[in-house]
């Protein structure tokens, strides 16, 4: 909702044409999915498991500082792989086509305190459908931050850099909370809702298991290395949290990314939906290792256009998508990780302070936001 609409130069016909071109890319990739892709995800999964096993093994001797370092680094990477390249993507159904019940969105569970089925609902159905629509997309500021000039400022927002930092450190808990839609469900009447209680219970169970594993059982197994292993798993979780928070912030927060009002998506066509995904996401540029460690969310734009294409194919898709951005004269927001992280944080700081009211029909818009 910047003052100038960056898509204003496109006619309705052009937008639909763009949609058709994107559909064609998608169809091609879908038709060419095969053995190589399956081998890829299987290889990643076994590499992750091996790495986790070895790292935890090394941590049994973590009283010895080099072992602590190696084990912690390995475990951090293993956890990141589990959450990003594997968990996130499997839960998107990117690998469902393989029909392998062990690698399927309906059966997968990840190393994360939010149970995968709850995350799937809030992430796949809400965030991916209503990407960057204020009031509908919980990812947008996670309900605790102001992410657009048009959102009403409240003194609470003064603290948002701090909220964001805390959220980064305990990101998985933040996610579990908003998958539960805690903000809205903690109201007196809603708290008793049996459906909510069942879900809250499931989260409780999952947290218990995760905490028991990381902070009780593995440290106990390490015997004399109890404390150092405890510190190692805590560090690995922290690294994973901050890393995934940063990557995800880069997907929708950097300057140049658009957000949308609820009204604007009424009766949205396929082409318009695509266009919103294009304008509402940002990429991270970098090496192959970098793409891998972000779970290919560095190809956020492509991921948002085609959330269910196998992640290993986003790199090739990106070349073609980028060509379409050029063809239709749209801005492809991308940059190296530090730059994007900085840009996103900059926005968090900037919007923690009130800004001048936007000129156009502001009162009307505010009503919309309040109604959300």
């Amino acid at each position, binding site marked *: 909702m910047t003052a100038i609409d960056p898509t204003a130069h496109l006619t309705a016909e052009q937008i639909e044409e763009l949609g058709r071109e994107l559909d064609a890319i998608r169809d091609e990739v879908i038709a060419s*999915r*095969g*053995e*190589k*892709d*399956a*081998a890829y995800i299987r290889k990643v999964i*076994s590499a992750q*498991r*091996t790495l986790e*096993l070895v790292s935890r093994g090394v941590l049994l001797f973590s009283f010895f500082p080099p072992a602590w370092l190696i084990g912690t680094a390995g475990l951090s990477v293993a956890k990141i792989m589990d959450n990003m390249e594997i968990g996130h993507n499997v839960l998107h*159904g990117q690998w*469902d*086509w*393989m*029909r*392998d*019940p*062990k690698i*399927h969105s*309906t*059966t997968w*569970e*990840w*190393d*994360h305190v939010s149970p995968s089925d709850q995350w799937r609902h809030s992430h796949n159905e809400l965030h991916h459908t209503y990407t960057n629509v204020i009031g509908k997309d919980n990812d947008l500021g996670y309900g605790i931050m102001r992410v657009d000039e048009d959102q009403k400022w409240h003194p609470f927002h003064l603290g948002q850099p701090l909220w964001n930092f805390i959220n980064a450190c305990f990101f998985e808990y933040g996610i579990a909370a908003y998958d539960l839609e805690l903000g809205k469900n903690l109201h007196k009447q809603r708290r008793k809702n049996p459906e909510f209680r069942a879900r809250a219970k499931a989260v409780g169970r*999952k947290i218990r*298991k*995760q905490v*028991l*594993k990381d902070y009780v*059982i*593995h440290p106990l*197994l390490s015997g004399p290395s109890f404390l150092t292993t405890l510190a190692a798993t805590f560090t690995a979780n922290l690294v994973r949290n901050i890393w995934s928070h940063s990557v995800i912030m880069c997907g929708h927060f950097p300057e140049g990314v658009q957000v949308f009002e609820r009204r604007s998506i009424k009766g949205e066509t396929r082409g318009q939906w695509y266009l919103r995904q294009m304008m509402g996401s940002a990429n991270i540029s970098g090496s192959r290792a970098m793409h891998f460690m972000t779970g290919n969310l560095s190809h956020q734009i492509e991921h948002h256009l085609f959330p*269910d294409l196998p992640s290993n194919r986003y790199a090739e898709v990106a070349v073609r998508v980028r060509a379409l951005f050029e063809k239709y004269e749209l801005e492809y927001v991308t940059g190296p990780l530090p730059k994007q992280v900085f840009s996103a944080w900059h926005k968090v700081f900037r919007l923690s302070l009130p800004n001048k009211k936007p000129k156009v029909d502001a009162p009307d818009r505010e009503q919309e936001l309040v109604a959300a």
Partner: protein
Amino acid sequence: MTSAALRSGAWKLLEMITTPLLPSDYLDLVSPLRAGADLRGRIEAVHPETGDAATIVIRPGRGWRGHTAGQYVRIGVDVDGRRLWRAYSITSPTNRQDGRVTITVKAIPDGKVSNHLVHRAKPGTLVQLDQPTGDFVLPKAQPAKVLYLTAGSGITPVMGMLRDVEFDDVVMVHCAPQPQDVIFRNELHDLVADEKLRLTEVHTDTDGVLDIARLDELVPDWADRETWACGPAGLLDAAEEFWSEHGVEERLHTERFRPSIVVAGDGGEVTFSATGKTVDADGATPLLDVGEEAGVLMPSGCRMGICFGCVTPLRAGAVRDLRTGEITEAEPGVLIQTCVSAAAGTCDIER
């Protein structure tokens, strides 16, 4: 503490260590065929039989319970990265020394799995298995005289029987387009040479399709024989009619490989409630295909209504059996075979 309790306690601890994964997820990395694992097998060799048929030698996992001659096994093969399940007759004898089992597969036109197994399967590949099943088997009491009536790949369960038990008086009538299409031809002829089998080959390219009445001339005492027949629907339909005309239908045992599908009308909106997907389906497409197209994880096997590997609860609505046209309506506990059922109006499948 008993050792069983100790073991289950240890297993619980292991589960706490590996959560959210299971201990088996890690064990599978190193030992996919161990006891207690999901049943799998490893392809050890592929022997061509004819131009379009091959025998696959499989080393089954430790959980394999063994088969009875004539039974089939559901096997899940990754073809182009996609797991597809089919059912194949076991052709190895039950007493094979090395514990391996074989299936013999004929590549059918457009058959994804059969072509893959015959032409592209590589030794070392893991496949998923189910325990063998099927009641196309020999009786406990030895029949005095036996007739095997087979056509094409219908010979495979019968080969499993021939290799398993020797009877005093065995006659086989087998149909194939040409001599070189007869699977196991050398072995059959060896049995003939050893006088363990009397064999009539009907070469349908030159002789035409077998007229069942010719049995009177080919095997004059056919009606006295305990008969096992396997082949295409046309042959089996004719055989069933012929045997019952002569009042000896209890001597005939058949195994059908392909359902005769009738085209049904209707169709409707199908909801897969466990996954929350809803799609439109026509009245002629099996719900198994409908679900797979929509990315729902559907179990399957023979895809022709015989193995029950695809049974799924029908939660609401109605489906039509594509073979009989029979309508099944949802009730608690009603299971349908998705491979031979199509939507007959709106329905809800628990997948």
